[in-house]
């Protein structure tokens, strides 16, 4: 897999991560281009979280190379990642529920006025920007002063995405943005993901839902037990094949056999009780 003419925003090449003697991630490669969505698919424990923690600067990789704009890097902390234009939106820890929407929107990058030790928050600008930026993403907020915990899960994800776009992120990493959402809300979030892509951002979408991934994704990386089990461009794979690989292919067939056997006697099989 060689780098195409436009340089990749992020390129991971055979990256590995160990926790003690546990291989959490081994030889995983991933390319993210501007205006494209790269999906990372995998079941629970496949190493998805470890992968985004490396990209987001929460953990450091132990082997392989991590290129940002073609330059080899090891990120020191999340601030470092943000400064290099990598914004990560986590499924559960994207926001501080008790704080108002406008305080959340600017958290960590608050604008100030005044000089020296008398710098104060530019509250007016913070409120107005929050309202207009969310409106631009199509979120018409009732009240920017309401605690963000009162928004729905989908709205909270969208605020977090709007925040990342506003602060000039070049790469947007989304951790299971649709995992806890209903069908309609998932659709709304995916629409914003596509909007971010159209705005020229490179997106890393982590999910265990191949249907959502196939709707918006340009390339797909499949993880299994910490290792890469497949890497495909969109034109190289069908949704059915993606779903099959994601579900474990042959393992799925085995499972369907077992289930048939288990349900046939009329009562559940007692073999599986320890």
């Amino acid at each position, binding site marked *: 897999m060689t780098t195409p003419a436009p340089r990749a925003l992020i390129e991971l090449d055979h990256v590995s991560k160990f926790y003690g003697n546990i291989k959490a991630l081994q030889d995983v490669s991933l390319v993210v281009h501007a205006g494209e969505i790269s999906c990372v698919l995998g079941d629970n424990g496949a190493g998805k979280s470890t992968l985004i923690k490396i990209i987001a600067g929460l953990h450091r990789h132990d082997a392989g190379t991590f290129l940002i704009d073609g330059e080899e890097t090891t990120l020191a902390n999340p601030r470092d990642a943000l400064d290099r234009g990598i914004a990560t939106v*986590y499924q559960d*820890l994207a926001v*501080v529920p*008790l704080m108002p929407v406008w305080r959340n929107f600017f958290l960590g990058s608050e604008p100030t006025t005044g000089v020296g030790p008398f710098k104060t928050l530019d509250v007016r600008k913070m409120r107005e920007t929050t309202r207009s930026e969310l409106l631009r993403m199509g979120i018409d907020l*009732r009240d920017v002063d309401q605690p963000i915990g*009162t928004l729905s899960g989908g709205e909270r994800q969208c605020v977090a995405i709007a925040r990342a776009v506003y602060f000039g992120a070049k790469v947007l990493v989304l951790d299971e943005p649709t995992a806890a959402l209903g069908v309609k809300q998932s659709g709304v979030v995916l629409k914003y993901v596509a909007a971010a892509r159209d705005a020229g951002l490179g997106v890393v979408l982590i999910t265990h839902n191949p249907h959502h991934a196939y709707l918006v994704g340009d390339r797909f990386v499949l993880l299994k037990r910490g290792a890469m089990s497949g890497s495909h461009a969109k034109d190289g794979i069908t949704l059915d094949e993606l779903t099959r690989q994601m579900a474990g292919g042959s393992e799925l067939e085995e499972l369907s056999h077992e289930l048939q056997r288990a349900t046939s006697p009329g009562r559940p099989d007692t073999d599986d009780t320890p």
Partner: protein
Amino acid sequence: MTTTEQPPAPSGADERLLRTSPLRRLLGRPELGSVVGAAAVFLFFSIVADSFLRASSFGTVLYAASTIGIMAAPVALLMIGGEFDLSAGVLVTSSALVSSMFSYQMTANVWVGVFVSLLVTLAIGAFNGLMLTRTKLPSFIITLGTFLMLTGLNLGFTKLISGTVSTKSIGDMEGFDSARKVFASEWTVGGVEFKVTILWWAVLVAIATGILLRTRFGNWIFAVGGEADAARAVGVPVIRTKVGLYLGVAFAAWVSGQHLLFSYDVVQSGEGVGNELTYIIAAVIGGCLITGGYGSAIGSAVGAFIFGMTSKGIVYAEWNPDWFKFFLGAMLLLATLLNAWVRKRAEATK
């Protein structure tokens, strides 16, 4: 137009937004419960204690409130930041002891002791903060440890150096009068005596409120108390914020300690035990959530004022002071119940 469509919603107004009356907005403030409580306590003692409404009593009540309020403000900020400081009470005594003993043993001018004490007190605050952020143990355990160690050090060192449980008098030393002016003077307005601690209290609460609501650091305090992991993920320096909060508590402990020293001239080394809970209770009555992420510095001032009124009101009513603790417990329970209800509303559709 011949269609019978509904007219579009008037632009500018949002049909989903119910009109919020000013009253409803007020109900959302963290200080609300404490203000209602303060009014009730004031009314109560106005009725049962004749001398409570005298102007001179007002100065006394405010003084009692200020000695608690100076500490309650930074303790409230710390609690909003999601942490406790059980060592805050004895740290006040430690600060006074260091100042007194250093001045007596080492120099001729008390101001040197005062500044050495500032450094030592801040160092203890930094120790609390760094231990907490490095070990990731609960602050309850860390500061309980500091509390016990300081209690022992206070008594042990004082007995070792001066042979008794109290320090030597430093009243005749150079700089004592000027230091007394700063930390323990009083002035009279219209026949009512006010202590300088009231001024310290007002300034500290104003600064704490300004920091909390109008600075980046204030935004970070709410964030690290509300959801530290989310805060770290968006680039908030969680460790620096928490250590800063402990330094704030230490600074206030230094002010309180110097007041203790310069108003009585000698310091009893066993003092301060139990006060840490008083500060926490004042902050909680003032609307701070025990779990962090929500509260106010002004609320802590109202909480301290309730303390002042209750402790002095019971004396003016000529009751046995033992009743004070009962009042305190009842206040705390009511305040916590009200806060829990407020939080539920704030997080409504989680």
